[in-house]
């Protein structure tokens, strides 16, 4: 273990790295690559490949990494030289990615996510031998803890010497559960919403199904037109759900969440195996998402956000996601992710005035859509235009649902906030992680005596918010976010709790 760790001088990546660099360049410059291939001249292809490999070999030769006191040091660049130093205590997450080819060749990509909004400090070691990647990863993670505790070289060395702690599995998803995650996921749901109205198109364009039937031999498909359309729609939905399940299996096959010492470990992937490691002390926010469909099935998903950059080229960066889990398990897993945060307490609903605000807001948001639909229907057939007004009661229902889903609570250094209409999002913020906070109120909110609390957390994720609380409560919560304990607050009596506060209890 120790012998494999790159504790010595600067090191280079794996000898095969130039090939992977070259493949990356080809992928980025694919129009050029296509152009070269289109010439169908072998010498040209060979020449380009040789030049590319020469360049990437030079890049590989110049790119080194080394561990120095308290930091990971990277040097790279052929013409313009670049030196990057990543202090251990800035490391948020370390990912080990193994694409199918990597697995054959026994190598891996090591990715280090650091705190900060920009993508500049991110480190991609592409590729290193698997053993070295694993050793380097455990070294980085241990060293980070050492740096956080003592900050001295001795501590780093001692931490690095310590054996890798035993793993304890928190959650394993079966293939069936992973497929369910894909089927009930937002991507699949979005298509269902699109396909639903599309299946009604045959009413608007009677000739469409005739045209379809003319193309696809009516006798073979179905005897009657509407049945054929329904069959096609059902088939399309099934194919889509199959694709959603399959893509979910590809990314999340064998999903395992475990703790190893002070780290959270996620393993997943069918072809491209990923191992993502985040220190337990690092989560800034944990979000529990429940879409309508998942709520009906008793399922939820969880997103864990660290202080790294969000999204970028890879939307899995600096965040771990549990694609699906039974609601009864949410509190157990939450307790492991944020010790002390579980179970989620009963949430307090905002004052009743907020109901009117939620409904008005929903109706106002639906107004442009209603107008557009009315115009469209007017153009199609005049008497149909008022049908668009049916959106208004829908918007009212949406507003009522939005109000029902609003709620907040605080307990033992955690702030809980919930909002959402179709997807109910419960956000759990460790108050000690909040960067800053603000209380905001629009003119309409002030007239109703309401305000919204924003809790600014590190990293690029959406700001957790407590929407439409009373001004007094919002200001009180701001004091909590600032870490000023306002003493024991009087219980907010006479207000009903939001429904569905705690899971599985």
């Amino acid at each position, binding site marked *: 273990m120790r012998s494999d760790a790159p504790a010595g001088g600067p090191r280079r990546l794996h000898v095969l790295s130039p090939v992977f660099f070259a493949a990356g360049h080809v992928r980025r410059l694919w129009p050029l690559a296509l152009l070269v291939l289109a010439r169908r001249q072998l010498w040209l292809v060979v020449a380009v490949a040789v030049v590319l490999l020469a360049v990437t070999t030079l890049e590989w030769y110049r790119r080194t990494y080394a561990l120095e006191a308290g930091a990971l040091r990277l040097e790279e660049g052929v013409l313009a030289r670049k030196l990057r130093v990543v202090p251990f205590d800035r490391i948020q997450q370390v990912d080990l990615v193994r694409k199918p080819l990597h697995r054959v060749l026994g190598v891996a990509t090591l990715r280090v996510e650091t705190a*900060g909004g920009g993508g500049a400090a991110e480190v991609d070691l592409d590729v290193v031998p698997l053993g070295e990647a694993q050793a380097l990863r455990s070294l980085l993670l241990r060293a980070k803890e050492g740096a956080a505790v003592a900050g001295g070289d001795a501590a780093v060395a001692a931490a690095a010497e310590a054996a890798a702690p035993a793993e304890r599995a928190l959650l394993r998803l079966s293939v069936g559960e992973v497929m369910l995650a894909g089927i009930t996921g937002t991507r699949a749901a979005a298509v269902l919403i699109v396909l639903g109205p599309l299946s009604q198109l045959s009413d608007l364009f009677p000739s469409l199904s005739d045209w379809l039937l003319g193309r696809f031999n009516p006798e073979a498909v179905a005897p009657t037109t509407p049945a054929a359309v329904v069959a096609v729609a059902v088939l399309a939905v099934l194919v889509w759900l199959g694709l959603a399940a399959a893509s979910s299996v590809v990314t999340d096959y064998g999903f395992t969440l475990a703790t190893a010492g002070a780290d959270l470990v996620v393993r997943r992937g069918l072809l491209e195996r990923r191992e993502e490691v985040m220190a337990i002390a690092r989560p800034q926010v944990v979000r529990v998402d429940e879409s309508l469909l998942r709520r009906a099935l008793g399922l939820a998903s969880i997103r864990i956000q660290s202080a790294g950059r969000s999204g970028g080229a890879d939307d899995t960066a600096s965040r771990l996601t549990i694609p699906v889990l039974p609601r009864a398990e949410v509190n157990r897993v939450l307790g492991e992710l944020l010790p002390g945060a579980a179970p989620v307490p009963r949430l307090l609903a905002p004052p009743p005035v907020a109901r009117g605000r939620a409904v008005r807001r929903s109706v106002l948001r639906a107004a442009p859509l209603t107008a557009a639909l009315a115009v469209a229907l007017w153009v199609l057939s005049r008497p149909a235009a008022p049908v668009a007004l049916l959106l208004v009661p829908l918007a009212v229902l949406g507003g009522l649902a939005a109000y029902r889903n609003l709620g907040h609570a605080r307990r033992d250094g955690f702030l809980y906030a919930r909002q959402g209409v179709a997807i109910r999002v419960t956000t759990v913020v460790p108050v000690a992680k909040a*960067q800053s906070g603000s209380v905001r109120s629009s003119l309409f909110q002030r007239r109703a005596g309401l305000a919204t609390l924003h809790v*600014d957390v590190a*990293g*690029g994720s959406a700001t957790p918010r407590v929407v439409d609380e009373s001004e007094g409560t919002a*200001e009180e919560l701001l004091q909590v976010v600032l870490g000023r304990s306002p003493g024991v607050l009087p219980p907010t009596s006479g207000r009903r709790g939001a429904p569905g506060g705690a899971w599985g209890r």
Partner: protein
Amino acid sequence: MTERTEGASAARTLDRRILVVWTVQTAVLVLVLAAIVLAVDVGLRLAGTHPPGPPGLAAALVALAGGVAAWRLPSLEYRNWRYEVAEDALELRHGILRRVHSAIPYFRVQHIDVTQGPVERMVGLSRLVVHTASAGTDATIPGIAAGDAEGLRRLILARAGTGDAV
């Protein structure tokens, strides 16, 4: 609103010269808008269509409305702006229609920028932008006398101390 600030440190208002900055900025914006409207108006007329009213009416209306805004809004904004270098946090209160009360604990501060736009430089003002590890933090104090900005920056940083701010 909390009343915990008595004695410790009073809420401060912005430097009055910020009124000049905001008025000039709004006026420039209004002039640009009016010029665009005028150009579209003239263009349409040259193209042979006939927008309602005499030439230049739309631009004049925009300039008039914008003029009223440039005259009234800065003083309203100014009246609503307060900031306070409290014991443990920087607190800002501002906004006309949308009120904002934001608070940034000092120990979260990563760095502070002192910047000056051209108009601000002319009247001798600076703008303080406080950054934390969160992109959501909204902490810009406009209208600080250029001579005081450095002192305020040092004061906040001194209170920020050192430590892991993430």
